[in-house]
């Protein structure tokens, strides 16, 4: 009797194990025409906050179309790996958020749905979107695989009272910014002119790009190869590093700041008079205790003799459908809904994003002057990061090299121009085109 039970149980256990394995390998949507799976990136103050903001919006979509949306909000630390896994297995969501700087790298995988004329017709046309923002969705001359959803741009936030007390005017050039920062720095009192996310490779690669662009240098050659060792790139990076090294207006401890929120905290606590942050920093600054009248934002300045007045890279979040979606029509309907003027307006405030539509109105702040300033940067003074498949490798190699150089400075070492050149040559040689 006992043996018979075991004989029956063994194949059942094997079948169960195989079944479990099969379940494990298919985390996918299993979509049909009535459902969509949506992976949203973390935009709000927490994953839970994102769900609270998005749920009523998605319910509206369901009411309009009869299509249910299964939402999963994913933190930025996990999103890229999750997308890789989804592309490899073909078992991902139907629609996904991506960082817009990954647009061309993800396009190269072939895992995202190409958006040709037919698809753009379903999306309401290409002309709806800010052209530069739409350009982040794919390599030049190709059909993009993502469309802009939330726009973001860097600005320089300053503490109004600290500036007034020191008798300092908001700077308009790099040199004025450094002078102002020096006037506001008091290492003995642990107060610094600026705070940087100097241990964050994502932030660092953005500023390598912005400073290089201000010098008129590009990170890629005309035929799409990396060119990190141009004088303009090296000088731009060194200028940024010198805020901590030579100008000494940045607390060396910032070399441990591995995300932008830590510099926001230093700013909100009165430890730093200025921070350079994307426009969605407002909510975080206010959540840390500052009132809207206590801080203002101005464009991140360029040197007086700069070739370009670039103040930001073209930042933001894009929206893409997976190539393996079983509900392409529904996915395109959803993408159109998420980028409709109404939804853009509704999400612009809680996520502090800039509109990506040509006739969109910013709703992320009640400060009309600040809104206008960020819109001007986004539409006129922001350049996209290299629109090449190796862009993701650029972010990692250059960003991490800058982390290490900031660490050298913070721990008492010196970074020379030759050191920057060597680091950029190494980063360039690491990239497989």
């Amino acid at each position, binding site marked *: 009797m006992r*043996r018979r039970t*075991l*004989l029956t149980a*063994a*194949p059942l*256990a*094997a079948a169960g*194990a*195989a079944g479990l*394995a099969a379940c494990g390998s298919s985390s996918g949507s299993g979509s049909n025409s009535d459902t969509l799976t949506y992976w949203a990136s973390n935009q709000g103050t927490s994953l839970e906050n994102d769900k609270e903001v998005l749920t009523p919006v998605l319910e509206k979509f369901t009411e309009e179309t009869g299509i249910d949306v299964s939402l999963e909000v994913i933190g930025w*630390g996990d999103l*890229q*790996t999750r997308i*890789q896994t989804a*592309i*490899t297995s*073909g078992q991902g969501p139907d629609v996904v958020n991506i960082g817009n700087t990954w647009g061309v*790298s993800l396009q*190269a*995988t*072939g*895992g995202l749905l190409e958006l040709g004329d037919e698809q753009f017709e379903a999306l309401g046309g290409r002309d709806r979107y800010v052209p530069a923002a739409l350009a982040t969705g794919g390599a030049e001359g190709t059909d993009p695989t993502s469309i802009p959803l939330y726009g973001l741009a860097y600005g320089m936030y300053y503490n109004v009272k600290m500036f007034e007390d020191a008798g300092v005017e908001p700077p308009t050039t790099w040199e004025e910014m450094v002078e102002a920062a020096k006037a506001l720095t008091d290492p003995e009192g642990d107060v610094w002119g600026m705070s940087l996310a100097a*241990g964050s*490779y994502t932030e660092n690669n953005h500023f390598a790009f912005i400073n290089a662009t201000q010098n008129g240098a590009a990170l890629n050659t005309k035929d799409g190869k990396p060119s990190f060792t141009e004088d303009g790139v090296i000088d731009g990076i060194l200028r940024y590093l010198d805020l901590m090294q030579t100008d000494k207006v940045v607390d060396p*401890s910032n*070399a*441990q700041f*591995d995300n932008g929120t830590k510099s926001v905290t230093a700013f909100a606590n009165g430890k730093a008079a200025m921070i350079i942050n994307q426009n969605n920093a407002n909510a975080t600054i206010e959540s840390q205790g500052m009132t809207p009248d206590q801080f203002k934002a101005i464009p991140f300045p360029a040197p007086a003799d700069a070739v370009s007045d670039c103040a930001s890279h073209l930042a933001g979040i894009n929206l893409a459908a997976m*190539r393996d979606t079983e509900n392409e029509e529904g996915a395109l309907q959803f993408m159109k809904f998420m980028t409709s003027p109404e939804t853009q307006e509704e999400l612009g405030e809680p996520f502090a994003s800039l509109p990506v539509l040509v006739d969109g109105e910013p709703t992320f702040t009640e400060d009309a002057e600040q809104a206008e300033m960020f819109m001007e940067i986004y539409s006129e003074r922001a350049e996209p990061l290299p629109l090449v*498949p190796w862009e*993701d*490798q650029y972010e*990692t190699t250059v*960003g*991490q090299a800058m*982390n*290490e150089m900031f*660490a*050298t400075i*913070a*721990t008492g070492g010196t970074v020379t121009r030759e050191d920057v050149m060597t680091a950029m040559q*190494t*980063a360039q*040689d*690491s990239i*497989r085109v």
Partner: protein
Amino acid sequence: MSSLTAPEDTTTPPKVPDARPPRRSRRHLFPYLIIAPAVLLELLIHIIPMATGFWMSFVELTKFFIRRWLEAPFVGLENYSIAIDLNTPVGQELLNSFLVTVAFTALVVGLSWGLGMAAAVALQRPFRGRGVFRTLFLIPYALPLYASVITWNFMLQRDTGVINHVLVDQLGILDGAPFWLIGDNAFVSVVVVAIWRMWPFAFLMFMAGLQSIPGELYEASAIDGAGPMRQWRSVTLPMLAPVNQTMLLVMFLWVFNDFNTPYVLFGSAQPPAGDLISFHIYNASFLSWDFGVGSAMSVLLLLFLLAVSLVYLYFTQWKKEKRNA
């Protein structure tokens, strides 16, 4: 005349066998059925992923092919040559990572072994409060990994961490507050945290091993005039040899492959001084989207660990067994 014995009737049909299979064959099938689930799981969890990783190391599995990974072009040993080419940053960084990991493993295994042994010997004899110490010593082993390492991350922060507060403000051992998570000190930090996690395992193993040593051996050696050090050298260590043999190998493999400690302690961008090889391979694969080269690095790591393990087993077990035979 004696009558002849009638010949055996060969025409009699043989006895028809039982229609049911003999019990013996069913008995033969039974063990296979019992181990089938385990074999299946082993295949799914270890063998197939390992074989896939080995295959991946021979193909150009970059972002351009991850969706059609079965169609990735075969490149032979190219991924291996990229991984070990010391004229390129990839090879130089892999060598740096390997050397850091060797030093890390030697320190963590050696010091964890010493601490575990010392604590187990100290707690061998009964005294009041022994149970409390045992529990305290085992806490690091019982704590969830993420929670404990992230706590170390907070403690090691330069300005707000309790380590600098104690060393600089309270004890005055250091003049200025050093960085622990960036620069060269990152190596010290990851070693300390790994030892903190690993030594209770050695302690636990030694406690179990010590309990199996007969008390008479100590009594006899004491009668012969052996002091505590001599007893430790001539009784404890030899009797713990079987425990040591297994434990050192296991600790070596765990520590050399440690991914979680640097990942949680340093985040996604670890400093060169703390660039442990498992995390280095993860970076090469997932951040650079170059799974071919990442797999080649993994296979090289596997071969290295296999070679070290075989040499170790040869000297600690097989050679000894041969000698005894």
